[in-house]
């Protein structure tokens, strides 16, 4: 049994990641529609939420933290329907709408004092989803998405922690590790669909957490967040590196993409630790 808070966090992350790893493995080798693998990640997010807050928030949600839960839940349901109906253009429109809408929903209390900050957050969220929702044709792009979102969430975790939100730290860390655990099964011959359910409920959930820490807690280190945002350049850089060195092995390509994602994620973490105004932990 965990004896400290840190041990409890690690234990929770391990339990969730193990459950996701097993579930993803079962789905991988069964004849189940790969759509359901995409649904695993929003479920991982909701599982992490339950671990962190020990509750299903009331409906209608009170405050941004509760809103996050329903943004993910509703997003996952809508995403599942879109994944099953396979309408790419509609999917992309809903993904972008969800990213912008959830920023406005969470940022609503800031409309009076900081409307531009809310709009900027919405635009940034749309931009993130715009990049992530590109290139969904090839099966490997779904693994790429998973890697980018997982490492992005991992990169935001320390920014959230030092932005006075240890709950968001736990959410992001658990989601990231669960996603990576799920991806392990699909590095070779992937059989997963990280499309609408994953984008709306998964990366949409991470965005909702970022909106909350940035717009409501107002303690996000914006420089660190901007550096982390450079993770969106990783796919293009990866493509360039792969071409330059004529790399054909998919696992190697994933390794390069992961390394390129880890650079801004790590740099963001270093920046936030260096700029944190007092000793840590206090």
């Amino acid at each position, binding site marked *: 049994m965990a004896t400290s808070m840190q041990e409890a966090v690690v234990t929770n992350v391990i339990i969730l990641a193990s459950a996701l790893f097993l579930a993803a493995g079962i789905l991988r080798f069964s004849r189940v529609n790969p759509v359901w693998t995409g649904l695993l990640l929003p479920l991982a997010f909701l599982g992490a939420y339950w671990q962190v807050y020990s509750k299903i928030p009331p409906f209608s949600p009170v*405050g941004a*933290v509760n809103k996050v839960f329903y943004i993910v839940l509703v997003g996952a349901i809508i995403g599942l329907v879109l994944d099953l109906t396979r309408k790419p253009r509609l999917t992309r429109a809903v993904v972008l709408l969800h990213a912008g809408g959830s920023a406005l929903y969470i940022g609503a209390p800031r409309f009076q004092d900081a409307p531009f900050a809310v709009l900027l957050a919405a635009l940034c969220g749309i931009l993130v989803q715009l990049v992530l929702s590109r290139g969904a044709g090839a099966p490997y792009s779904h693994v790429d998405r998973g890697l980018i979102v997982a490492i992005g969430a991992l990169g935001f975790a320390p920014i959230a922690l030092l932005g006075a939100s240890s709950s968001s730290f736990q959410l992001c860390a658990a989601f990231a590790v669960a996603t990576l655990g799920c991806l392990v099964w699909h590095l070779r011959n992937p059989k997963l669909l990280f499309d609408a359910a994953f984008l709306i409920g998964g990366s949409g959930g991470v965005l909702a957490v970022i909106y909350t820490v940035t*717009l409501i807690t107002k303690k996000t280190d914006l420089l660190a967040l901007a550096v982390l945002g450079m993770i969106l350049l990783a796919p293009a850089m990866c493509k360039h590196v792969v071409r330059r060195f004529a790399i054909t092995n998919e696992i190697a390509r994933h390794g390069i993409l992961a390394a390129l994602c880890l650079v801004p994620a790590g740099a963001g973490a270093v920046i936030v630790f260096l700029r944190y105004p007092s000793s840590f932990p*206090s």
Partner: protein
Amino acid sequence: MTTMARTVLASLAVAATLYGGQTKAATYDIDIVHSHVAFFIDHLGFSKVIGTVNDFSGTFDFDAAEPEASSLNVALKVSSISTNNTQRDSDIQGADWFNATEFPEITFVGKEFKKTGDKTGTILGDLIIAGVTQPVTLDVVFNQEGQNPWDKSHVVGFSGRTSIKRSDFGMKTALGMIGDQVDLFLEVEGRGR
């Protein structure tokens, strides 16, 4: 009218005046200069962090002869919470804690006032923190009522205390490190209008 009838009527009039005066509760404004809200919360079992709420306001109706008819409304500004550490004070304004952006005030509305002793009583009311409403009972000691010799205002003073669980209000961050139970202490002076 007979003398007896006159006497009875006069007595009734005097009694009605006196009775009316006793049951009419006066309205008081909380005197922020002489009122304090403090809370104690455990830190890893080693010590208790002491915090104060430095900006609040409120009114109450009170009549010592009929305390059950009292009323109480208090609003505390989350931004004024101090634990004597700038970093921590800033952190607890966030969404994981008091969520000052969305819920800038903590409010308490007294609903049921009971006298439990000569100078003691309880106030059951709704405490709203971070948008979550929970019933809370304050144990109250009636200290004194009278004229302030300095400015001749009519003043009544109370001490109060209660304990709440922060998790009941959705604040579950760092429960392993920072206590769930929060002990609240209040010293209140009200100035009659």
